[in-house]
C-alpha cells in the first residue's frame, strides 16, 4: 500500500500545498540545491549541532535539514489542538492524582503495579503540590498521521521534551532562504515561543515569591547533546543558563553564584533528569543537580519545570492506558486516538506479539530516542529471533504496535522530490492556561522507506507550517 502523501494526492497538490507547489514549479532546480547547501552552512556557522552518543568520530553533527516545508492546514491544526489540549489536561490531572489520592487506581481503571513498580514514579512527590498545580509545563506530543483524517498520538514527552530550538531555527533559516515564499503563503508565526515560555514559567512562580520571579535554565553542561538548545532557550528568554555547580541552597532558597555573590532563583526550567536533580534525595553520585533542592521544592520556595516525577508519562506502559486516562479525567473520549498497543506483560498479547513479530514494532517501555526497538518488517529473521528471546525473558519491559503506514512528505534529493516518512512534535505550554504555538518539530526519515525519524538514528527535520486559513 502506498502511504498517504501529505503533499500530493492523485498527481495533484493537496489543498494546503497548492500555493507552495505553484511556487515550487517556478523554481530552478539548481538554485534550490544551492539553497540547501546554504542552509547547512548557516547551521554549521551558528553552531547548531548536537552530539551523538557513542559516536566518537563526529563529536558534533548537524541534524540534516530539508528545505521542503511540511504544511498543515488551519482546519487540520484546530482539530489537533483540541486533541492535544485534552490530552495534556488529562496528563496533568493524572499526575496530580497519582501523587495524591490515586483515585484512578481505586477506581481500578489502571493496574496498581504499573505505578508502584515504575522507576519513573517518585514516592518523594507524594503529597507535594507543585506551584500553580502544574506538572508538565512543557510537553511534546508526538503525532503521526496515516490518512486524510487519521492522526494518532505515538508518544508523550513530559520529562524534558527537546527539539523546540530546531522548530525556531528551521523557521528562521527558511525565512532567510526564501523570503518571497513567505509573502505568497500565509504561515502562522512560531517565533514568540520563547516569550510564551517565559511568561508561562513566570505564571507558575512559587506563591511565596513576590514581584517578578528570577528564572533560570538548568543544563547538564556544554557536553550534553542538547546543550545548544539549552543555551538557545536561555538566550531567547533572557534568563541565565546555569549548571549544577552554579547552584546551592542558601537560606532556604535555591541560589546561583554570580560575580557579586549568591542570587535567589524562583523558577528553574531544568533540562536534567529527575535522577540527577538532587543528590541528597536521588542519585547520590550526581554532580549535575543541587543538593537540597527537593527540600526547597517541598517548602514551596521554587518552581521546578517540569515537576519531578512527570517522566512517568513517557512510559509506554502508561501510554497504553491513555485512552482510559483521558476518559477518566475529562469525561470524554480522547479526540486524538492512541496507536493500538499490545502490552507484552499480558500473556495473550505476548503470544500474539511473538507470532506476529514480522508485522509489529516492538519498543521498550522506558526507551526513547529510537534505541532498543525492533521494526519487525525491516528486521532480518535473525534479528527477530534474537529480539524474541529478549521479549520472552522480560515481557513486562515491552509493548508492541502495528507498523503504521506513516504519512510521507517530500524531501529534496539529488534527483528531485522524493517522499519520506514524517512525524510531528508540537510543543505545549501549561500554566494557568494551555498554549500551543502553531507548528512544531517535523522529523523526517531520510532513508527511503525508513520509518525511524529520530535524529540519533539518521533522521532529519523540516520547517513545519500551519497555514493562516
Amino acid at each position, binding site marked *: 500500500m502506498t502511504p498517504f502523501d501529505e503533499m500530493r494526492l492523485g498527481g495533484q497538490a493537496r489543498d494546503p500545498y497548492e500555493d507552495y507547489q505553484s511556487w515550487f514549479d517556478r523554481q530552478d532546480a539548481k538554485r534550490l540545491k544551492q539553497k540547501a547547501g546554504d542552509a547547512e552552512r548557516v547551521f*554549521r*556557522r*551558528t*553552531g547548531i549541532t548536537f552530539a551523538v552518543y557513542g559516536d566518537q568520530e563526529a563529536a558534533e553533527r548537524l541534524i540534516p535539514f530539508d528545505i521542503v516545508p511540511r504544511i498543515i492546514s488551519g482546519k487540520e491544526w484546530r482539530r489537533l489542538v483540541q486533541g492535544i489540549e485534552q490530552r495534556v489536561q488529562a496528563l496533568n490531572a493524572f499526575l496530580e492524582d497519582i501523587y495524591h489520592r490515586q483515585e484512578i487506581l481505586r477506581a481500578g481503571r489502571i493496574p496498581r503495579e504499573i505505578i508502584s513498580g515504575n522507576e519513573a514514579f517518585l514516592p518523594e512527590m507524594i503529597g507535594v503540590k507543585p506551584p500553580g498545580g502544574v506538572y508538565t509545563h512543557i510537553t511534546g506530543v508526538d503525532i503521526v498521521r496515516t490518512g486524510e483524517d487519521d492522526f494518532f498520538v505515538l508518544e508523550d514527552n513530559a520529562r524534558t521534551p527537546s527539539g523546540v530550538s530546531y522548530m525556531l531555527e528551521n523557521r528562521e533559516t527558511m525565512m532567510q532562504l526564501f523570503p518571497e515564499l513567505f509573502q505568497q503563503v500565509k504561515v502562522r508565526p512560531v517565533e514568540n515561543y520563547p516569550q510564551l515560555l517565559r511568561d508561562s514559567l513566570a505564571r507558575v512562580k512559587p506563591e511565596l515569591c513576590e514581584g517578578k520571579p528570577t528564572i533560570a535554565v538548568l543544563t547538564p*553542561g*556544554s557536553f550534553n547533546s542538547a*546543550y545548544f538548545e539549552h*543555551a538557545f532557550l*536561555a*538566550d531567547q528568554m533572557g534568563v*541565565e*543558563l*546555569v*549548571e549544577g*555547580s*552554579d547552584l546551592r541552597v542558601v537560606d532556604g532558597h535555591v541560589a*546561583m*553564584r*554570580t*560575580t*557579586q*555573590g549568591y*542570587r535567589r532563583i524562583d523558577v528553574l526550567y531544568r533540562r536534567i533528569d529527575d535522577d540527577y536533580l538532587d543528590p541528597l534525595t536521588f542519585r547520590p553520585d550526581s554532580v549535575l543537580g543541587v543538593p537540597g533542592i527537593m527540600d526547597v521544592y517541598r517548602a514551596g520556595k521554587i518552581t521546578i519545570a517540569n515537576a519531578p516525577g512527570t517522566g512517568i508519562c513517557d512510559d509506554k506502559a502508561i501510554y497504553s492506558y491513555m485512552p482510559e486516562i483521558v476518559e477518566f479525567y475529562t469525561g470524554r473520549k480522547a479526540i486524538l486516538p492512541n496507536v493500538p498497543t499490545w502490552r507484552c506483560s499480558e500473556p495473550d498479547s505476548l503470544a500474539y506479539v511473538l507470532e506476529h513479530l514480522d508485522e509489529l514494532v516492538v519498543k521498550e517501555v522506558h526507551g526513547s530516542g529510537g534505541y532498543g526497538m525492533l521494526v519487525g518488517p525491516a528486521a532480518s529473521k535473525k534479528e527477530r529471533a534474537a529480539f524474541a528471546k529478549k521479549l520472552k525473558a522480560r515481557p513486562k519491559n515491552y509493548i508492541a504496535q502495528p507498523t503504521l503506514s506513516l504519512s510521507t512528505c517530500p524531501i529534496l534529493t539529488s534527483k528531485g522530490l522524493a517522499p519520506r516518512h514524517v512525524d510531528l512534535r508540537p510543543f505545549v505550554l501549561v500554566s494557568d492556561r494551555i498554549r500551543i504555538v502553531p507548528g512544531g518539530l517535523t522529523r523526517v526519515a531520510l532513508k527511503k522507506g525508513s520509518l525511524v525519524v529520530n535524529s540519533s538514528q539518521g533522521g532529519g527535520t523540516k520547517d513545519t507550517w500551519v497555514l493562516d486559513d
Partner: protein
Amino acid sequence: MLLGRSANGLYWMARYIERAENMARLVDTGLRLALTQTSASSDEWASVLTSAGVRDLFEQGNDAFDTATVTNFLLRDTANPSSVLSSIDTARMNARMVRTALTRETWESVNEAWMAMHRMLKRRVDEQDLPAVLDAVKRETALIRGAFQGTMLRNEIFDFAQMGTMIERADNTSRILDVKYYVLLPSAAWVGSPLDNIQWQTILRSVSALRSYRWTHEGDFNPANIADYLILNRRMPRSLAFCYRHICDSLDYLADEYGVRQRCNEMADAKFEKLKTAAVSDIFDEGLHEFLSDFIRDNAALGNQIATDFRFY
C-alpha cells in the same frame, strides 16, 4: 548580573584566543631565525619553546629541536595545552559555554576560527606552507578581536574578557623578554655585533612591534630603549604598562558597578603605579631578570585573585 562560571568562561576564552595568536607569532619568529642562520637554529627553537613555557613538555615527547618537530608541537600537538589547536579548542569550548553572553558576531567569529584552524592544521604543515598558515591564524584571531571590540557592549562581560586578554598578553610579553634578557644586558662583548641586532629584532618581531619601534626610536636598537618600549611605553599595545592600564580600567569599572573595591583592585593598582613611575634604569638596577620574574609571578597571582574576588569557582 553575571554567573561566576560565566565570568570564568569569558576570561579563559579571551586568554586562549590571545594565546593562539601569540603562539603563531612565536613560531613565526622562530622560523625567521632559522632562516637567517646566524645562530644554530636548534638553540633558537629551544628558546622559543622556553618563551612559550612548554619546553619541559616538549622534551618529554620529542628530542629533536628541528623546525618540523617544534612547529608541529607548537601548532598542532593536542598533548600541548598551549598549541594553537589546543588553544582554539579551549577558547571555543569556553565561548560555547558563555555563548549567550556574546554577540552573535563574536560567537560566530570564534566558531569560524575554530573551524578554519582545524581545517588548516588537520595534517602536518609543510615548511613551505607555514608562512601562509601562520598568517591565517593571526587573521582569524584578528577577526575575533574585531568582532569583539566592534560589537560587545562595554559591561562586565566585556571587562572579564578584556582582563583575560591583557593578563595573557602581559604574561607573554614578559616571558619573551625574560628568555632574551641576556641579550638586553649591556655587555661590551655583544653590543653592536650583527647577531645582537638580529636578536633584538627578533624580540620586537615576536610581539609585532618591529615597525612601530622604528617609528618611536628611529631604529636605534639598544637595550634600554627596547626594555622601555616593551615594559613601560603606555601607547604600545603589547607592553606591560599598556596591559595594566586596561586591566585597571576594567577592574575600576567593575568596582564602580558592584560598589565594592576588592583585593584584586589593590594588586592591579600597585602594579600599574610601579609601571607608570619606574624608569628603565631602575629596572636595570634591580636586575631585568628579577624584575620580570617578579612580574610573571604577580601577574599570575592577580589572575587568581580576580578568580577569587569574582567567585569564578
